[in-house]
């Protein structure tokens, strides 16, 4: 089973990297970019029997730092 873990900074947490990329997009002349936030995509291939609670534990214990990050688990099929 393929899983995508989307890790993003919580709202209100400053994202200096996103801000720098925002400036760069402005510099390239793309008008109308209002905000840029940079996250992380983690793709896992796991046994079909892997439980939702195991996936959540993986995120809570290692893949995301819940002090600063949110995560979303997406199942993308076989």
């Amino acid at each position: 089973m393929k899983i995508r873990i989307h890790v993003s900074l919580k709202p209100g947490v400053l994202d200096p990297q996103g801000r720098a990329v925002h400036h760069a997009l402005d510099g390239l002349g793309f008008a109308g970019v209002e905000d840029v936030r940079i996250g992380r995509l983690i793709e896992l291939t796991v046994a079909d029997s892997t439980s939702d609670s195991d996936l959540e534990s993986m995120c809570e214990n290692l893949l995301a730092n819940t002090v600063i990050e949110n995560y979303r688990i997406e199942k993308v099929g076989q």
Partner: protein
Amino acid sequence: MSFRAAVVTFPGSNCDRDMAVALESVSGQQPIRVWHGDSALPERLDFIALPGGFSYGDYLRSGAMAANSPIMREVAAAAQRGVPVLGVCNGFQVLTEAGLLPGALMRNASQHFICRTVDLTVENTDSLFTRGFAAGQRLRIPVAHHDGNYFSDEATLDRLEGEGRVAFRYVENCNGSRRDIAGILNETGTVLGMMPHPERAVDAAHGGTDGRTIFENAIRALAHA
């Protein structure tokens, strides 16, 4: 007096030797070197140091992989028993990732790696690490980091300040840290995490000895314990 200190080395630690040299120069006793994959710490430890560096190449997040290494379970158990733990730079990042200290250390607000000597103020003078300082005393200690931007939610920051657990603040905020925080203590004051490197300021040849007092304080506190 015996002073049994351990310095933990993770793959990618690069200040472990400096930490060991600093501890030996202050205590007169050679610390025990411990490897991240060890499943046990030496017995009867008086002090544990987690050094700076780039453990596991900063993969995933700084300190995240090291926080889950076998030795960290033992470090957490020792901290729980009251063994003093000092985490410097990457060691501080490991302590937050391991949940031994609150908050997180994010990329510097400037995005730049910062390597220079900075001014700090001593905020807490009650802990075993900081007892020898005067409140508000200025220290000059080097920083060298990319991810030193201390973040915590407002409630946690208020709690840290209310409980006197901010150990050091930057005089000029060099990395975007919330409330200029450079170092914090756990609830019992026995775990200290700080971004500046006291082990790089223990000898006049380093350009200053302000870091030395932190080690001297810890050793003195243990002698009187």
